[in-house]
C-alpha cells in the first residue's frame, strides 16, 4: 500500500544529495582553498578513475574493512569497487614511479568517495557515514621520521587556519603503541586483538569487561585503560619501572620503540610551536589496519565526526610493489563546511533558482534539508 500521490519527479537514489548553485560554489571554493594551501607546500594535484579493483583496495588491509564498500562486476568479470578513500589509488599510481627512481612524491587530491550506508545524506555529511562525500587530502611518500610527521601536522593546522575554522581539536596517537603496550602486559594476542577492536569502536565498557575477565589470570592491572589514557608524550616519559619491564620482552620493546617515536614527535612539535593544538590520547586507535605510526583525527564543534583523518603507513607501498615510507591525511569537505557554517551551507539555497513549477511556498518559509517538496 502507498499513499495515493502521483509521482511526477524522477527519484534521487538513496544516500545521494543534490547540491544547488550557492552550495556547490561554496564546496568548490573550499576544495580550491585547501588545494592552494597544499600546493604552496609542494603538493601537486592528481586524479584517477572512480573505480578500483577490489584486490587493489585489499592490499595490506583486513577483509573486514571491505564490508561497506560498493562493489560491482566490470565487463571482464572482475570485481570493482567505488573507491571508499584515495590512499590505495595513490599508492597504486606512485609505486611504479618510485620503482623507476623517483625518491619522493607529494600529491594532493580532491575527489568523491563512496560507502554503503542507510544514513540520510545531509546528516551523514555532518556526522555519520556518508554514501558519497568529498575528501581533500595529501599523500607524502618517501619520507619518514618525526620531522616529516610534524610537517604534515603543521600542514593540516595551516589549512585549518587558512579556512578560519575555530575551536577545532587535534587528537594524536600511534597505531602500534596501544596493541604493543597491552601485549607487553602479558595478554594473549587474540585478547589484544579484541581489546584493540574495542578501542577502535570507542567501546570502553567492553574493554574494561575483557580486562576484568583476564586480570586475575594474567596479572594485567584492572585500570590498564586509565594508565594508557594517562600517558602523554608531551608531558612525561614512561615510568622507569615500566621501561625496565618492557625492555625484557619483544612486544615490550615494540611498545618502547613506538613510545620513542612519540616522544621525538612531541619534542619536535613543542620546538616548532605546534604542540598547543595537539592532544595525545593513546587509547585512540584507527579502524584502518595499514597504519604503522602516527595517527590523528581533527574534531570541530558542529560536526559529530572527525573533519580530518590521517596517519603514517610505512608498510603499504611494499604491498604495491615498492617499499617506501608514507604519510597522509584528508579533510572531509562537507563536514568541514558544516562546521564552518554551523550547518548553514546546505540551507542557503535549497530551492532551485527558478522554482515556479514546484510546490508553491509561503513567502519567507524556510526550507530545511530533507523536506523538499513536502512543504504546505
Amino acid at each position: 500500500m502507498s499513499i495515493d500521490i502521483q509521482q511526477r519527479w524522477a527519484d534521487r537514489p538513496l544516500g545521494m544529495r543534490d547540491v544547488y548553485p550557492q552550495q556547490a560554489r561554496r564546496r568548490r571554493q573550499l576544495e580550491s582553498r585547501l588545494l592552494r594551501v597544499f600546493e604552496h607546500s609542494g603538493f601537486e594535484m592528481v586524479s584517477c578513475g572512480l573505480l578500483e579493483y577490489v584486490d587493489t583496495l585489499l592490499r595490506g588491509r583486513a577483509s573486514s574493512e571491505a564490508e561497506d564498500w560498493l562493489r560491482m562486476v566490470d565487463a571482464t568479470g572482475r570485481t570493482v569497487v567505488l573507491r571508499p578513500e584515495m590512499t590505495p589509488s595513490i599508492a597504486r599510481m606512485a609505486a611504479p614511479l618510485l620503482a623507476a627512481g623517483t625518491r619522493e612524491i607529494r600529491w594532493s587530491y580532491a575527489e568523491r568517495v563512496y560507502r554503503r550506508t542507510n544514513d540520510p545524506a545531509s546528516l551523514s555529511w555532518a556526522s555519520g557515514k556518508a554514501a558519497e562525500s568529498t575528501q581533500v587530502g595529501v599523500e607524502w611518500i618517501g619520507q619518514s621520521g618525526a620531522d616529516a610527521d610534524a610537517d604534515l601536522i603543521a600542514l593540516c593546522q595551516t589549512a585549518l587556519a587558512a579556512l578560519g575554522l575555530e575551536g577545532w581539536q587535534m587528537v594524536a596517537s600511534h597505531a602500534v603503541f596501544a596493541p604493543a603496550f597491552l601485549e607487553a602486559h602479558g595478554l594473549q594476542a587474540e585478547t589484544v586483538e579484541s581489546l584493540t577492536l574495542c578501542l577502535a569502536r570507542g567501546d570502553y565498557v567492553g574493554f574494561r569487561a575483557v580486562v576484568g575477565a583476564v586480570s586475575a589470570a594474567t596479572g594485567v592491572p584492572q585500570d590498564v585503560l586509565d594508565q594508557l589514557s594517562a600517558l602523554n608524550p608531551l608531558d612525561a616519559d614512561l615510568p622507569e619501572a615500566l621501561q625496565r619491564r618492557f625492555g625484557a620482552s619483544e612486544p615490550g620493546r615494540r611498545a618502547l620503540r613506538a613510545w620513542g617515536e612519540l616522544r621525538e614527535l612531541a619534542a619536535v612539535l613543542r620546538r616548532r610551536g605546534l604542540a598547543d593544538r595537539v592532544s595525545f590520547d593513546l587509547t585512540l586507535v584507527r579502524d584502518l589496519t595499514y597504519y604503522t605510526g602516527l595517527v590523528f583525527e581533527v574534531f570541530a564543534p558542529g560536526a559529530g565526526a572527525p573533519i580530518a583523518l590521517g596517519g603514517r603507513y610505512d608498510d603499504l607501498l611494499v604491498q604495491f610493489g615498492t617499499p617506501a615510507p608514507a604519510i597522509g591525511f584528508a579533510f572531509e569537505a562537507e563536514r568541514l563546511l558544516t562546521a564552518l557554517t554551523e550547518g548553514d551551507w546546505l540551507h542557503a539555497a535549497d530551492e532551485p533558482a527558478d522554482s515556479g513549477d514546484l510546490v508553491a511556498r509561503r513567502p519567507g518559509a524556510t526550507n530545511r534539508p530533507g523536506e523538499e517538496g513536502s512543504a504546505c
Partner: protein
Amino acid sequence: MLTIALAKGRTADDVVPRWRRAGLPVPVDLDDSRALVFEVDAPAHGPLRFLLAKPADVPTYVSFGVADIGVVGKDVLLESGREVYELLDLRAARCRLCVAGRPEERDRRPRRVATKYPRLADQYFRSLGVAVETIPLSGSIELAAVIGLADRIFDLVQTGATLAANGLVVFDEVLDVSARLIANRSSYRTKRQGIQWIADRLAETLAEEAVES
C-alpha cells in the same frame, strides 16, 4: 552547553536517581512533566540540556551529535549499530535478552522469530548456524508466540512474569543488558571536560554502591 539524551521509560526512571546521588544536577520537573526538553544549570560547567527520547532514537541523536551524551540500554545500542563511544556501564535498568517460546517448541528447530531486534536476532541465529525468518514487531512480542505467528520470540526479559502469564518459557539467555553512558565521538573530544566530569561522578557513585552492597 552539554546536551544529554535520556531513554524515556525504565532507563530514565532507573538512572535519574543515581544521577542525583552522584551530585549531578537534574531538572526538578523531569519526572512529572510532559515536556521533552529540560534545561538545568550546572555550576562551573554551564547549562545542561536534557532530552527525553524514545530509547531507539537515543543512539541516533548521539551519533549525529545533536546530543553530546546519552543514556540508553545496551540492547538498543547494539541493535542501532551506531558509532558512538560507550563510556560507562551504569548497572541500571538491568534485564536479559532471551529466546523464548511455548514449551512444546523447545526441541523443534526454530523457524520464525518475532522480535524488536531484527539485527541482533539475525546475528544470534546465524551464529548458531540456523536459518530463520525474522518478523519485526514493535511491542508485546509475546503475543506472536502465543497465537502462533512465530515459534520463537527474541526479546528482553526482566522478571519473566509476562512470559509466565502467557505460558512461555525461556529457551536461551543471549545477553545481559544494562544502561550505558554513551558519547558522540566529536563531543568527547571537543567537550571533554564536561563529559569527563559527568562520567567520573557517575563512576564514583557506582564504586560506592558496589562497596555498600
